[in-house]
């Protein structure tokens, strides 16, 4: 399963038949971008995650025949998330008469399109980090995403401070090749990198 090209017709057939492995790959591919996209609409990341979860669950429950390729699956996922986000905002408005969605006017088709593009750009940047070797990534994540101190990471992972330094160095040189000019972004915000 894992060596079938995700863009192939064969993969779509596996998905249609309801193979959990295939479904998992779709989930792993679109989960973060969709959560990001939903957050840009509802402006609440935990609500956004719940919405995305519901959408995947209904994709699993529904009859998945009729998707000619992965792109239509993607479009379908984005449309469903968008629709549920709008429903969520409307419910908020109904429950709370004082609630005003300040961004209402900009919630048009073009706004959604731009947010989808934004999610895809960020996904691309993130994938560079995600491609780091497992141990290296874990350290990178703890250090730069969660903001943990080296000492704490060393304690939790039971490794030496030196190992952390080496791993960070590896991450740095990898990202430099992988991200080109974009590496500068990462570098500026993480002077220690």
């Amino acid at each position, binding site marked *: 399963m894992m060596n079938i090209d995700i863009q192939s017709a064969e993969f779509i057939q596996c998905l249609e038949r309801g193979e959990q492995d295939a479904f998992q790959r779709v989930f792993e591919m679109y989960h*973060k971008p969709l959560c990001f996209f939903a957050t840009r609409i509802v402006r609440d990341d935990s609500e956004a995650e719940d919405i995305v979860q519901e959408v995947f669950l209904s994709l699993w429950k*529904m009859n998945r025949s009729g998707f000619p390729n992965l792109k239509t699956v993607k479009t379908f996922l984005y449309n469903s998330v968008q629709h549920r986000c709008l429903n969520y905002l409307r419910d908020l408005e109904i429950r709370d008469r004082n609630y005003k969605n300040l961004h209402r006017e900009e919630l048009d088709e073009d706004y959604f399109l731009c947010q989808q593009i934004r999610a895809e750009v960020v996904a691309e940047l993130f994938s560079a980090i995600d491609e780091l070797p497992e141990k290296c990534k874990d350290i990178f*994540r703890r250090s730069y995403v969660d903001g943990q101190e080296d000492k704490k990471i060393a304690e939790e992972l039971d490794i030496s401070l030196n190992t952390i330094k080496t791993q960070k160095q590896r991450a740095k040189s990898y990202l430099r090749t992988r991200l080109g000019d974009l590496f500068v972004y990462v570098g500026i915000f993480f002077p220690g990198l």
Partner: protein
Amino acid sequence: MQKEIHELITAYLRNELSGKESDVLREWMEENENHRRLVEELRDKKVVWDDVRLFASFDTGKRWKQLVVEMGQQKAKKRSLSRKLVAYAAAAAVLLLAGIIGLLQPKEDGVKIAEAVPVTIHPGETRAVLMLEDGNLLPLMGMKDTTIVVGERERLVIDESGNLKYLLTENSRVPSFHTLRVPRGGEYKLMLDDGTEVWMNSASELRYPVHFTGDTRRVELVGEAYFQVAHDQEHPFVVVTRDMDVRVLGTSFNVSAYPDESAVTTTLVEGRVELNAEGLEQAVRLSPGEQGVWTNHRMDVRQVNTKLYTSWIKDRFSFESEGLETVLRRLARWYNVDFRIENPGMKEKIFSGTIPKYEDISKVLKIMEMTTNISFEVKDDVVIIR
């Protein structure tokens, strides 16, 4: 293969864009303000890094584990008692059917009878009927880029996109009336003698003089239309509906006055309109962005997102907190199908969102199924809601 916009933007941020690709991206940015702003925001390093951080915070692994549990629960539910009973009942029914078929047709081909035939119902096309003063009917379907001579002096031009335009000689001053009737599943755009453009929605009818004479420009509407009125201070434009008149000078607005809807709604996009109805003490004025709703001899004015009410002229249905019945009525007009609600509880459902128009109805229903707990079944021209 041509790169998608997000790939171009990423390449641009990495400073790896070819000359040709830069042109494509620049063109896209110039399309509108939102596009330009998106790229500019992403050029801000802080914005990008905040985005990446947010992106990374979603725990895909943890969420997958939760999802697997929920997916399993779904399977377990299927095996509940009531499902079992239904399955037995279905099996019994199949046996019974087979029995009857067996009696009628002792040969082997009776089994396929229970198979549902997939039906594709296509959305409405641009087609309409023009009723002339003398009662003659002129079907306008499928005619493009043609000129039709009507009566003695009037000439009707249908341009290449199938829209109707009147070309009149100075002599045709006799007020004669035409009625444009757009059937269910149809849609039409026409330009009146004064330059006013009218987008007619399906199942609608507009009666108008071929040439406007007198102090006011009066047209009569049943159904829904979007008007872009040519400015003429001297001659107010009046849309007469079942129980309300809309009076304007030069403006864009949408009027929905279907016989099967209790309300007559007027949505003003720009300019100014005056609403008048029997029993109303004085005319109600709308400002842009306002909607006047006339129901049960009462006029309510509220602020709305006008895009939701006028998007139908741009290939999309938009709904904002609308009941299932209203949503289905609108879909029925466009796709020329009937809906049957077999589960009255579903009528309580409220919808928001937009749906593309020019797809066949099964896609639209699929989107609705995915995003709600409603399920549809298409049988011939009827869609059943269980």
